[in-house]
């Protein structure tokens, strides 16, 4: 018997009981479908997080004040007030920092923004013109804060602030933060994003204005610098580190009152989190795959019991042990492969649907497709083997007599 004949007789046997065949296949469809959908969605969210982080600038370093120790208790990083405007100006003017192209000192807070009788709570960033260079901020309308406006009461707003608080073009209109009135001079292009640091829900005002009118501090929350290219990130990090250590008169780098985070580090951390999540989801889906496989084994065992007389007859007519094993294995593998292919289609459709609903990029994972075909075939062999073996080792006399 060649493979073609094995296949056609397997198809014949499976179509004799369509309902049962369908139900057995359904288990595999659901198993493979959920594995593929979850892996695809996991990879999509991983890509989306990566893109968001990269959009913040892949070649930037963020310097934050170090942890403060009060009475032997170490406070959270960033709680200290060690970065000043003078640090930022010195960095900008230093010839030592050859790999740094721009320095953006930043003060951040949150505040109630009021305009046209509407108000909302937004992130308020005090920035210099360098901010737009370091963070690659694009303007949709108007312009960003310029050098001559460093003490003016002007504001650049994110696209979401513009649509929430204003009707028509916000440029030239005014908004209030606390009791200070600002004139809107520009609206940034939407970058997409969510959460606490959403660039679309941010109001940018000149750094000095912010320090005087809003936050009332002379310190900085962070300094972001951009390096010449991604290749010199390590050199740039060292330059900045030693420069600030020297300025702060610290000899031991372990005692530094600031820390430097590279975008790469944040990216790696975020990727590992989403990666773990993807594996976890795939693991859960794999359980349903195993349940599907057991379903196949169950059906094949029922089939063997039901067809004992047929097996006896086939053996009496000359079928060898191997032939019977192949017959039942091919049936099991056919069930699971068809289930796997259908599951793949279902998985792809579900992930396409969900990613369009929750605004994720649609990722078709080739790994998932190979997994679908490989794993489903493997499950067929694994769970089909025992029933096939059982069928083949029946004695023809016993099998023919079976009632």
């Amino acid at each position, binding site marked *: *018997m060649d493979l073609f*004949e094995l296949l056609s007789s397997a198809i*014949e046997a499976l179509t*004799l009981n369509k309902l049962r065949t369908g139900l057995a296949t359904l288990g595999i469809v659901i198993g493979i479908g959920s594995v593929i959908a979850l892996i695809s969605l996991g990879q999509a969210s991983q890509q989306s997080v990566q893109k968001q982080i990269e959009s913040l600038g892949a070649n930037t370093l963020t310097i934050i004040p170090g942890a403060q120790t009060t009475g032997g208790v170490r406070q959270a990083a960033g709680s200290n007030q060690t970065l000043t405007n003078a640090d930022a100006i010195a960095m900008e003017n230093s010839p030592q920092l050859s790999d740094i192209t721009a320095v953006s000192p930043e003060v951040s807070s949150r505040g109630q923004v009021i305009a046209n009788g509407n108000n909302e709570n937004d992130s308020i960033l005090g920035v210099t013109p360098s901010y737009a260079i370091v963070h690659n901020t694009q303007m949709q309308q108007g312009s960003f804060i310029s050098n001559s406006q460093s003490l003016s009461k002007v504001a650049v707003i994110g696209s979401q602030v513009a649509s929430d608080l204003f009707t028509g073009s916000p440029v030239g209109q005014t908004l209030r933060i606390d009791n200070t009135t600002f004139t809107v001079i520009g609206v940034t292009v939407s970058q997409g994003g969510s959460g606490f640091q959403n660039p679309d829900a941010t109001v940018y005002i000149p750094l000095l204005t912010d320090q005087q009118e809003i936050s009332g501090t002379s310190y900085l929350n962070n300094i972001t610098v951009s390096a010449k290219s991604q290749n010199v990130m390590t050199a740039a990090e060292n330059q900045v580190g030693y420069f600030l250590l020297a300025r702060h008169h610290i000899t031991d780098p372990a005692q530094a009152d600031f820390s430097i985070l590279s975008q790469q580090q944040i990216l790696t951390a975020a990727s590992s989190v989403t990666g773990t999540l993807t594996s976890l989801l795939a693991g859960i889906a794999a359980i349903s795959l195993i349940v599907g496989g057991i379903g196949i084994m169950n059906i094949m065992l029922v089939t063997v019991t039901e067809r004992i*007389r*047929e097996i*006896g*007859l*086939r*053996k*009496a*007519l*000359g*079928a*060898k*042990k*191997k*032939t019977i094993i192949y017959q039942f294995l091919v049936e099991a593998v056919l069930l699971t492969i068809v289930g796997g292919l259908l599951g793949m289609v279902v998985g792809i459709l579900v992930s396409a649907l969900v990613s369009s609903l929750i605004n994720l990029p649609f990722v078709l994972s080739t790994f998932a497709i190979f997994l679908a075909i490989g794993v489903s075939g493997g499950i067929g062999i694994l769970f089909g083997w025992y029933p096939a073996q059982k069928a083949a080792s029946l*004695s*023809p*006399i016993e099998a*023919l007599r079976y009632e």
Partner: protein
Amino acid sequence: MLIHVSHLNKIYYVGSTETIALSDVSFDVSKGEFVAIMGPSGSGKSTLMHMIGALDTPTSGTYILDGEDVSKLTDDELADIRNRKIGFVFQAFNLLPRRSTMKNVMLPLMYAGIPKEERIERAKKYLTLVGLGDRLEHTTNQLSGGQQQRVAIARGLAMNPAILLADEPTGNLASSQANEIMDIFKDLNKQGHTIVMITHEPDIAQNAKRIIMIKDGKLISDKKTSKH
């Protein structure tokens, strides 16, 4: 000799008790014979049928079928012997359900690795021979008991075996259909086919040319029927 059985013993062991199913059975069958093996239930005639059908091997003794010693073969070698040398006809017909008569007759040919065109040709030929030339595409459940048994006979003949081995072929049939089947057997025998038939019904056995009687595992008589 087509069939040479000598000093055949078959002992079944169930736990520590042994049951002697066949005890020192010897006989020969020549080509072209029509033999009935008779005996009451429990006589050992089914065990003898299993031996002749190469479905089982004897505990001791020799069984040579068409020049091949079947006594000490492995399971797969026995399967091959059954495929090439023996055409089975069972009491319960044992056809594949819901498949066409053609598919059923082609089944042993498929295991023998015969090319598809020849399978179709042979299946048509033997179905026509048993009078089912107009029922080639009928599924087995559309046929009467007698017709189903005729399909089984066509299947038994398809490999052109050394013997046609029938186990209670009329046990599930009404007497008119039983007679039809016996007529087919007699015709086939006239054409030169060797037939060994196991039965417990004396009037069915009378259709054969020779009757071997088995009782308590022993061969008690072996004689020609009165008609022949």
